[in-house]
């Protein structure tokens, strides 16, 4: 089975991580709080090693509780990085504390002050060798490492700056391992005034160094959560919201996406999708690596068994983790991953629906990748994930550019960045240009005509 290492950076990254691990365990029938129904556990123990390592070669089936994991010295394949230690400290106290290996934690005080330059350059150069060393420790525990799953926000300083510095390091030191980045974009209502700078500077690095980017924005996540809370079946989750950190539900939406995203690599299926296939299918040209992710059903993991909704359309606008309507643009490629109780016919049906709805690029009218995984997510009979590379992503980039321009026109707050020694003011300009170029590339593709050179004439 494929193995993955999560790399969680900054407050947001680590909070997504804290939602990730309980749900990952739940897929294997292990719960931190209450016992999980026996249902489909134990058949796919091999998959346990995708996210967890243990010193003994024990299959996942023998673990039922957290204390089983503790006594077998099972560890999460997770690297935790933060430049302040409050979130990671919570891990150190939480019910899953033994799951995290102390040697894979990297913290410092007092953060990056919402300053990309501080995170990327100051901390980036100071911590580079320790980051590589820590990641290498995790890599050495893997036999079949197939991807890094990076999680961070791009609005603050640490995730945005150091997170993207980490992406670069992984690119240089582990070039054969794919880098999948889930990054959270700010909703625009937060109080981080420098967020537009951080967002743009980080986005530029991701275009260049990430294999694929699966972005989410807090506005979409909030809307999804509000929608779910209005529905009866999520009363249970609504209670959770009241009781805990406001991001928890938003983060579990992201986590569901990640678990579905990796399911084909972890579990068997009649049409398997390995992670290495993703960039081949979804990135037709370098730097067009931002994918719009849509989920159906949207729900959090819950013990409710929802009926198999045949009509689900993961590509619908309000099912996206980003405020982007993928079908409004020209589609360069789409991946449909279904898990659980879904037949080939259901999948073909979804393909033809998507083909009727979407406008595909003239040079590939069938740019669709499909996958079927046998194992349903915990709590649902089936789930569908769509990943779409659409030219409507240019709107998202325009927004990023526009927000940046509003501040940069006045040179507001730039002194914070210029204070950082190795930061060059040029970076503002080149990063802005790179965003322009990407928008231009999308627009050019959106206008592609169906003019084709004549086929070769053979005698």
């Amino acid at each position, binding site marked *: *089975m*494929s193995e993955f290492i999560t790399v969680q950076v900054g407050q947001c990254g680590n909070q997504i991580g804290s939602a990730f691990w309980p749900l990952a365990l739940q897929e294997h029938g292990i719960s931190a709080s209450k016992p999980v129904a026996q249902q489909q556990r134990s058949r796919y123990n*091999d998959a346990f090693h995708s996210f967890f390592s243990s010193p003994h070669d024990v299959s996942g089936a023998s673990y039922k509780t957290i204390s089983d994991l503790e006594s077998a010295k099972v560890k999460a394949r997770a690297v935790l990085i933060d430049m302040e230690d409050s979130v990671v400290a919570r891990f150190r106290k939480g019910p899953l504390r033994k799951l995290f290996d102390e040697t894979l934690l990297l913290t410092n005080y007092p953060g990056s002050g919402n300053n990309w330059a501080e995170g990327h350059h100051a901390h980036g150069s100071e911590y580079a060798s320790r980051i590589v060393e820590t990641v290498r420790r995790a890599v050495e525990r893997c*036999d*079949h490492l*197939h991807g890094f799953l990076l999680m961070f926000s791009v609005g603050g300083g640490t995730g945005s700056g150091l997170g993207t510095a980490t992406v670069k390091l992984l690119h240089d030191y582990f070039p054969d391992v794919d880098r999948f980045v889930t990054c959270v974009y700010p909703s625009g209502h937060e109080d981080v005034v420098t967020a537009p700078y951080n967002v743009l500077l980080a986005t530029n690095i991701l275009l260049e160094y990430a294999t694929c980017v699966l972005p989410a924005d807090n506005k979409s996540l909030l809307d999804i959560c509000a929608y779910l809370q209005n529905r009866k079946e999520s009363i249970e989750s609504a209670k959770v919201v009241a009781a805990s950190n406001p991001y928890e539900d938003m983060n579990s939406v992201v986590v569901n996406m990640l678990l579905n995203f990796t399911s084909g690599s972890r*579990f*068997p*299926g*009649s*049409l*398997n999708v*390995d992670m*290495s*296939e993703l*960039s*081949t*299918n*979804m*990135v*037709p*040209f*370098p730097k067009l690596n931002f994918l719009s992710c849509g989920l159906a059903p949207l729900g959090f993991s819950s013990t409710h068994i929802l009926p198999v909704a045949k009509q689900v359309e993961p590509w619908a606008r309000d099912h996206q983790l980003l405020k982007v309507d993928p079908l409004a643009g020209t589609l360069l*490629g789409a991946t449909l991953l279904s898990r659980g109780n879904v*037949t*080939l*016919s*259901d999948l*073909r049906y979804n*393909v*033809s629906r998507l*083909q009727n709805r979407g406008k595909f*690029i*003239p*040079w*590939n009218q*069938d*740019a*669709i*990748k*499909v996958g*079927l995984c046998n194992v349903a997510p915990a709590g649902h009979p089936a789930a569908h994930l769509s990943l779409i590379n659409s030219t409507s992503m240019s709107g998202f980039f325009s927004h990023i550019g526009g927000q940046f321009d509003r501040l940069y026109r006045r040179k507001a707050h730039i002194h914070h960045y210029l204070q950082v020694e190795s930061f060059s003011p040029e970076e503002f300009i080149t990063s802005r240009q790179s965003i322009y170029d990407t928008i231009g590339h999308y627009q050019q593709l959106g206008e*592609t005509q169906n003019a*084709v*050179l004549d*086929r*070769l*004439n*053979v005698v």
Partner: protein
Amino acid sequence: MALTTLQFGQCGNQVGHELFSTLAKDIHSPKPGVSARDNELYIQNSVNQWFEEDVDSKKLFARAVLVDTENKVVQESFKKQSSNRQWAYNERTCAVRSGGAGNNWALGYQRKGPELLESVSEALRFQNEKVDRLSGIFSIMSSAGGTGSGVGSYIMENIRDEYSKKAFFNAVVLPFEAGEVVTQSYNTLLSLAKILSVSDATLLLQNDHLHSMLSSLLNFKTVGIGDLNSLIALKMAGSFQPLQETPFSMKLNMSDIIARIAPHPAFKYFCIKSSPHVPKESRRFDGGCQWSVLAKHMRQMLRTNILSSDSVSLDWELKQPSSVPPSVHSTTQFSCSVANHLVTRGLAFSNNQYRPEEDFVGRGMHPRWAPENAAFTHSHQTRRFNDQDKFAFLVSNNSQLHVPLNTVVDKAWKMFTHKAYMYQYLRFGLMEEDFVDAFVKLESVVKAYKELGKNQMSYI
């Protein structure tokens, strides 16, 4: 007559598994409909062709080598068979890595293929040492992914010399045209072009067509991958299980069939048409159809529309045979065939009543250069197949085959002219010229098939 099967990638391994299950089921058929002696002979021939038999347990071991760049599928196969008492794979004959070939022919061909070559060759030798006379090597793969297409074509190319005296042929599963892998047309183009130079003959299987057969002939409401594979396995077993020597039928084994079906280096593709496929619930009403009706029905499957030769609207394989003579349209003609091989399986075939060559020979059905007695052959086997009294298969190398190939070239060319996805392939050391070479090769094939029998049309 021993054959070793090479299963490549997810598709090759899943189809291969189903093939051996179908063969084992056929071998153990409770109602063979022939004498005990004939049945014994058939079983012996079939076992020799596909399996090793364990002397003590009588358990059959597939003479196969399992190759994949990702271990999940092969592991599932082993898991499935632990409960199977009829047959199994030998665990020593796997060559497996992990991580997959990323749906990228170049990654499969340039990197994973060379990594796997040694262990595949070893596993092959291990299998082949045990047989007295190896007659051929049969590879199974899909063309859309990276492993079957890339690793498969690399390995075929590199073991060809070691088995230069053997029949060397393969089956390729073509993807659903409406998209399954975004780069499927590139991968298909590149693998078909490589395989073309090393394989004696390539069986083309189209997922779209199989899916249509299941839904329109067999009334499946939902189709699973396993259903496609059962149909593929049925077609393969039906064509290649042992045949009989009778006054009217030739006793051909698999390598004979391959040699006959692809006698010309420019025409190496074939398909297998089959009938009747009857839904389980209406099985008991069947049996009424006469051999002549069935054979004429098989012939209808060679019809194409002359107005648009690319049209698939007229597919007789999606119909049940009928004793009412088909209405003949002046707009249809028989597709010109390099060779056709008819296999009939089941009860009471007698050439006093019906001689199939009358229907399959002459009148523009073959190109002028093909000698008539070689361009059509018929073989029979009285033993019942698939628990049906009558079953017919037409192994056919005909002009219609240009249609799926043309689609692949067309789609790949569109992407290529926009340079889409090229950097993914160049990254693994492929060059633009390699694409151009592949285009040239396949364009020639498409042209040759399209023009097969041109200027000698005869309208029926």
